[in-house]
């Protein structure tokens, strides 16, 4: 078996959020719950899996299943309540929200993003033009980011995250917003990363994408992994359960 790239060991992530109940001060005093103004949400409740070099894992599940949160945990960007994540090197996270400053141009954002990651200036200068061309952003590269479409932002984020080829790449829905042409190129780049013995974890709602790009899939629900296996099998099971849920309940078969 291939070498381990990352190992998630019984990780738990909790975050605290504020409650904003639709009631006035008087009602709050009456219900004597005036003090309980926040609620702890256990987004990830004990997830373990191993990721090997050259492997690609898809994470699927309903909204709120803890998919994005677990990526933050794997990337070491959010504190774990329990358990630990071990890795060969620090994973790079690629998400749609990852933009720096909407006022600044795409080029400055790429520069800043790479500098924040600690990529040396010489490497940025050597690669940035090529990457801009790769992402097809030449015409918009000096325009402020706020004028970008969501697909163009995703392309930019992709550039930042892949400038220095990461060992482990975590992708949060970032490919979904790009158009077909960029999608093809991005997939090719990810395959390249994997062939350089890297590993990829993809959170996606597109089962087609997961089937095509992943060897293995985890199905998450309410913060736990309910199924872990070959991508096709897990995607089939998930599709079946979703279909069962979305079937209109009030129309029994008439025959």
């Amino acid at each position, binding site marked *: *078996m291939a*070498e*381990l790239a*990352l*190992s998630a060991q019984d990780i738990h992530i909790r*975050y*605290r*959020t504020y409650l904003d109940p639709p009631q006035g001060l008087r009602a709050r005093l009456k219900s004597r719950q005036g003090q309980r103004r926040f609620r702890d949400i256990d987004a990830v409740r004990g997830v373990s899996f*191993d990721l090997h070099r050259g492997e690609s894992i898809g994470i699927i599940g309903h909204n709120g299943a803890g998919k994005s949160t677990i990526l*933050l*945990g*794997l*990337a*070491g*960007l*959010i*504190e*774990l309540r329990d358990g*630990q*994540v*071990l*890795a*060969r090197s*620090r*994973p*790079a*996270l690629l*998400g749609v*929200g*990852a*933009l*720096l*400053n909407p*006022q*600044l141009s795409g080029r*400055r954002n790429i*520069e*800043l*993003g790479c*500098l*924040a*990651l*600690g990529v*040396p*200036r010489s490497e940025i200068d050597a690669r940035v033009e090529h990457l801009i061309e790769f992402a097809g952003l030449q015409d918009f590269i000096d325009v402020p980011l706020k004028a970008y479409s969501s697909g163009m932002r995703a392309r930019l984020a992709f550039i*930042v*995250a892949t400038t220095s080829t990461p060992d482990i790449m975590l992708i949060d829905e970032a490919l979904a917003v790009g158009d077909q042409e960029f999608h093809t190129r991005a997939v090719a780049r990810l395959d390249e990363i994997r062939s350089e013995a890297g590993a990829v974890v993809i959170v996606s709602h597109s089962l087609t994408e997961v089937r095509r790009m992943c060897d293995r899939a985890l199905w998450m629900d309410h913060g736990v992994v309910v199924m872990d296996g070959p991508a096709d099998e897990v995607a089939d099971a998930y599709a079946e359960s979703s279909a069962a849920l979305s079937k209109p309940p009030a129309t029994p078969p008439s025959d």
Partner: protein
Amino acid sequence: MTDLPDVQSQAAQLRPVMARPPGREYAAELWRRREFITTAPRNQLRATNMDTVLGNLWFLVNPALQMIVYWLMFGVLLDVDRGVDNYIGYLVVGVLTFSYVTGALMASARCMDSNLTLIRSMYFPRAVIPISTLLSNLYTFVPSLLVMIVVVVATGELPTWRWLLLPVIVAGLSLLLLGVVFITARIGKQLPDLHTLLPHLTRLLFYCSGVLFAPAAFTSNELALLLFDINPFFDFVELLRWSLLGRPVEPQIWIFASIWMVALSTFGAWFFWRRELSYGTT
């Protein structure tokens, strides 16, 4: 599971993703981001005035206007020089220096939250954020220093060798301020209420730092004057006045200023670093 020992030996080669690097390694990681630390605030500042008519000229006009308001109020209307030579010069150094202090402190309380998107999208030593927050304020302080020099020269002061020490004193003040910014950045993350509390604290500090009046002109109480001397912000304002206006300072001002500078910057860095892993939480 015959390959279990093998898996374990492999796992031994892996390192925890979520680990706070020891001090020396942390400093090296920070050093690798030195260009980000200096570039990010410059870009931020460039963006702030992009859509205004005056553009970057505002960085000069703003301190000048601020100065004019204080001068009209305290120099012309109230005429409160109280025996201070060159009161206008005294006022400009106090007001503009303190404006740097207030700006940095106010920005620091929210800096971890306003950069949460960045913090949650990639790893870098989190101390990058308070340092760039301070630098951003230092950059806007540079035009203020120009205004100070213009006013000081216009009111009849001539450059002396003491002016050469101006950069050293500004660096010292910035280091002191960085220590405080580290502390307020961490506290502001854990307790957002600090942001509302801070204007009151900085105003208290303002009155305790001899910005508008020389405390010695108002009291001869030894203890009160000692309290002013112990306040490092008062000390640095006095040192800047010593440099630009030639006002005499007692040796203890230098000593208090240096002790606070070393103590607060060291403690602040440690205090911030202790919670390194927590800054990504909402």
